[in-house]
């Protein structure tokens, strides 16, 4: 298993290199001078050209693109992500500040997704062709189709503005520092309810649909019949024998769901003024903060690659048929 993980990690390197390269060159194809963003043009005109040159030199903008690229890659390899134009601070620090918020949101949403989605999927499959099943399938498609950021706004309208049950935005209350230890935890959780729900509910709907179809497929397999013929209770047939087989491909789906979750997180963070990586990326794009754009894209890609790796490792653990390195069975 250790060798398998190591091999997967090594395989991820060219992947990340490719992503880094694409990101870098796309960014340098963009029109305009990054210096425009560093200083307002009005200020620039008043500034001593020599100072300007110094700044250019400091950020390496005076060198040809390929030199900048090699330098940037070298820095990247040592974990140096450069300095933000906008905050005038190391990008690594900024990301270290922001990333926990995004992970909090994404991981909790993923948990919500797994619990609700899988449970609903099983329920729907077991009740196949009943009204319950129909409501779950149609209901989940509806939920799946609602854009998360709009749903977030509507929920804020109802539950925060009108009912006052949940905060409208932010990660903590104004009086957070005055709260006791347990009060702080509760306050944090209280702020997490709406964003996590919105982020998780759409993917839970997707999971439920997938889980239902997958479980129904497994339930029609001959070994399920064989297990029934051994006199096992229907509960054990479905929840033990069939479920384990149905869950395995779900793991891969979770690996693939991560990019979408991160994409969704960008929008949700905007709605709830949640200071995560997504919001940082949006600010960076709007402010042409090149080092931050590069870094957030890279980090997002790394998260996705890691997510896939975790899913594959989980797959290998859950399915004894996967002999590592071989193609997985269809």
């Amino acid at each position: 298993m250790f060798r398998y993980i190591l091999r997967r990690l090594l395989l991820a390197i060219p992947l990340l290199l490719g992503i880094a390269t694409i990101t870098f060159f796309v960014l340098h194809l963009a029109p305009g001078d990054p210096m425009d963003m560093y200083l307002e043009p009005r200020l620039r005109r008043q500034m001593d050209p020599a100072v300007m040159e110094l700044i250019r030199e400091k950020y390496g903008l005076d060198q040809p693109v390929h030199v900048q690229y090699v330098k940037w890659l070298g820095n990247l390899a040592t974990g140096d992500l450069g300095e933000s134009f906008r905050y005038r601070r190391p990008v690594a620090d900024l990301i270290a500040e922001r990333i926990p918020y995004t992970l909090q949101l994404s991981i909790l949403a993923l948990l919500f997704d797994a619990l609700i989605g899988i449970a609903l999927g099983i329920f729907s499959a077991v009740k196949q062709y009943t009204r319950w099943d129909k409501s779950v399938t149609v209901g989940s498609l509806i939920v799946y189709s609602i854009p998360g950021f709009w749903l977030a706004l509507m929920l804020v309208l109802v539950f925060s503005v009108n009912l006052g049950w949940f905060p409208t935005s932010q990660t903590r209350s104004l009086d957070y520092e005055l709260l006791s230890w347990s009060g702080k935890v509760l306050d944090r959780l209280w702020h997490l309810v709406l964003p996590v729900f919105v982020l998780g509910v759409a993917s839970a709907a997707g999971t439920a649909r997938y889980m239902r179809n997958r479980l129904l497929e497994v339930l029609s397999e001959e070994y399920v019949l064989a297990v029934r013929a051994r006199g096992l209770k229907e509960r054990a047939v479905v929840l033990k024998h069939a479920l384990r087989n149905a869950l395995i491909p779900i793991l891969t789906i979770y690996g693939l769901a991560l990019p979408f979750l991160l994409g969704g997180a960008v929008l949700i963070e905007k709605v709830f003024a949640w200071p995560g990586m997504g919001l940082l990326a949006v600010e960076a794009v709007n402010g042409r903060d090149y080092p931050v754009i590069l870094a957030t894209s890279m980090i997002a890609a790394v998260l996705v690659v890691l997510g896939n790796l975790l899913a594959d490792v989980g797959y290998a653990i859950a399915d004894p048929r996967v002999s590592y390195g071989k193609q997985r069975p269809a």
Partner: protein
Amino acid sequence: MENSDRPNRALLLAGSLLPGVGHLLLGQRRRGTHLLLLAVGLVLVLVLRWDAFVDALSSPRLAAWLSARFLLTALAATVSFSLYDVRRSLASHEHDHSGRSPFQVARRRFAENQLAVIALYVILLMYLIAALAPILAPFDPVAIENPTETQYLAPSWQHLFGTDEFGRDLFSRALYGASVSLSIGLLAVLIAITIGTAYGAVAGFFGGLIDNVLMRVVDVVIAFPVFFLMLMLVGIFEANVVFLIVILGLTSWTGTARFIRGEVLSIKQREFIEGASAIGLPSRLIILRHIIPNAMAPVLVSAALMVGGMVAAEAGLSFLGIGIRPPTPSWGNMISQGQDALLVAWWVAFFPGTLLAITILAFNLLADGLRDALDPKTLMRKFV
């Protein structure tokens, strides 16, 4: 059937001048109702929005100019199709549509799925509305006139969806927004499908080193969080509508490419391709004539799904303020505007979001219906 039993030919042809009546008389109720509804709808638009139509006919603005021509063309097409179809029915004496070709089987299976059929109608209606937006819209979507008096008016008969902070009619903006959102969705998917199909076909057909290199590129693009990529590209290039479409299309072709490659690889094994090879068809023709048509059904399903996704992506980007920028209305930037007004005017965000959700849902239902229709489940005959 006795000749005298059949309604008079002349009557039928005259009746079908009002499209659909001929079909109804022939007993083709489904087709007849559809044509009649379409024709009545178009005529109603023409009558009720006559002034707007006349304005649009000679409008200097391309959208309005096109929209007026579209309305006339649609009317003419409905009438002539209905005439042609009735004549064809009379000529062939054949009202039996229960054929056995795969396409007909798929069509019947699709028709059995009520939700999918409704979804298809909703989508067609949305596109019709989008195309006619300049004629249908009661107010100018962009111009600002005495905002202090008309700011944040709640929904009423005059302003169905209310007004925004500049006093603009949100119903009109939503109609124009439909044309922006829907055309972006469709065109971006066309780009993505075209690139993906070509790319996957080349990789699958040639195999070997070419396949290997091409697929590693796909791996890299797929590993990228798509929305981040769109965000970066759209933001940096300060995209206009055309560029936005191109970027959405350029970032979404990988799934199709992988799929088509797999199909090509599996179809390549089948004998009829070998047959085609044996009689000396060049490989380019083999791909175009045999492989691509064979793989198109599942692509159609994923295309329907993708349009929904693209509409959502555009809305998301515009919501973040980097897609379609105000004052041009899109459902996404209208919702963004609505976020700022959430405390005072819920309707600003509510209506465009509802339309957005209905559209995406319709595409998802359509995709579901297509999938079920094109891929009939094998029946349980395993144990017999």
